[in-house]
């Protein structure tokens, strides 16, 4: 029962109030990136932030609800991708517990680990639900790899491995920059504040 106790401790009132703001950050920054036409998604900064400050379970919940709310309010296409967001929050939470959120170069390692997880989790969804071709630009790389004779799963997986690291390293670094901009007194109210104090 120690696991249940520690999960309960992660969900204090500050966590429950931070999660909606983090979800809104995910969505609004995702939309700003679309306006600026940047070649990345950056739609999980809030998820990584919650993972680092409130632990892996809170991060996983933030990611899941992010996709559900994106689906409720903007585009129902985002529902089936919730496992990807779930694992982004979960892995960044464990990375932070392992001390990979304390300096900027360790945060890059977090970004890479999160990217690999996202690439692996999104592959079966892209393959079985969308037949490999989704609405995002990643599909051009997938199509190229298919044309050179790779099978579908390999093509989707390698395309994801090419695209994800840039996006997720940038996401992790931006989340780190946000944490560095907050006061120690403010951060101390979150359950996993020790994860990010140097």
């Amino acid at each position, binding site marked *: 029962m120690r696991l249940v106790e520690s999960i309960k401790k992660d969900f204090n009132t500050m966590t429950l109030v931070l*999660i909606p703001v983090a979800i809104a950050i995910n969505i609004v920054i995702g939309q700003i990136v679309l306006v600026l036409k940047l070649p990345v998604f950056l739609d999980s900064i809030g998820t990584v932030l919650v993972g680092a400050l409130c632990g892996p379970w809170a991060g996983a919940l933030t990611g899941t609800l992010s996709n559900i709310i994106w689906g*409720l309010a903007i585009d*129902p*296409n985002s529902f089936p991708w919730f496992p990807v967001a779930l694992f982004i929050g979960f892995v960044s939470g464990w990375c932070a517990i392992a001390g990979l959120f304390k300096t900027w170069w360790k945060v890059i390692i977090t970004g890479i680990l999160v990217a690999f997880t996202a690439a692996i989790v999104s592959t079966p969804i892209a393959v079985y639900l969308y037949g490999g*071709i989704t609405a995002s630009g990643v599909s051009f790389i997938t199509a190229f790899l298919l044309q050179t004779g790779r099978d*579908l799963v390999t093509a989707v997986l390698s395309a994801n491995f090419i695209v994800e690291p840039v996006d997720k390293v940038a996401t992790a670094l*931006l989340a780190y920059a946000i944490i560095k901009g907050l006061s120690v007194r403010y951060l101390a109210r979150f359950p996993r504040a020790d994860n990010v104090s140097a």
Partner: protein
Amino acid sequence: MPENTPQASQDKFSRMPDRLSFYLERGSPFHRLNPLTKLTLVFCLIILAFFGPGYWLPSLLYLAVLIPLSLWSGVGREFMRTSIRLLLPLFGFLFVMQSLFYPGGRTVLVSLWIFAIKAEGIAFAYLTATRILVMVSSFLLLLLGTHPSALMNDFARRGVPAPLTYIIASTLQILPQMQAKAATIIDAQRSRGLETEGGLGKRVRALLPLVGPLVFGSLVDVEERAIALEARAFNSRRVKTSLVEIPDSQVERLARWTMLLLMLLALASRAWLSFKSRV
């Protein structure tokens, strides 16, 4: 909500979805169904479309179930318009890419330089497209006919933890405020000379001045809101009474069990078919 969005004229940002739910107020019988019944229907249609037998099943579900339901609930026009807006670009892309690059393509229909359109690719793209159509438009139908807060209230009444429904309801409130704030920040930074168009380098450099004020501004409110909630017995475990009653009936309960059975049948038929093809 749309009325307090600052109008950034002729701005791409003002084309951001300014409305936070798809819900349309109509007094139809579909609207009055219990939210859980409609959600079960959504999952049932999706499972049938993806796992049920038959190439034409998803098309049939769309034509014979989803379109009549949308007309019955009085949201037909909006249902069509929104699904076209959400799906047409994806489908165009899907057909082009799959007809050219589908791995199992043998029968070449048209060939041009190194590109060849294959019949198997088109057939596969059609199946995928109709499945996605059923998935997205059945969620859309649910959302057009059900207010998100009715869905959350019903969940809370059925024992879903209050923090979970609080998070969803609260996000749906915060989101339009943050979108309005983002539009204001973009306008303000542009008027100070920030360039949001041009080369990639310029656009990357524009990101921080836009994201910074938005994020820090909204994180400041978090602490205050936490104190306010703690002062209002948010952490109390006692059962709270609800102001709004959401109807449910014996017939609907029966319908939900029937749909659950249908889903299990579809999954079983898929499992049996793949077992048979392997032996």
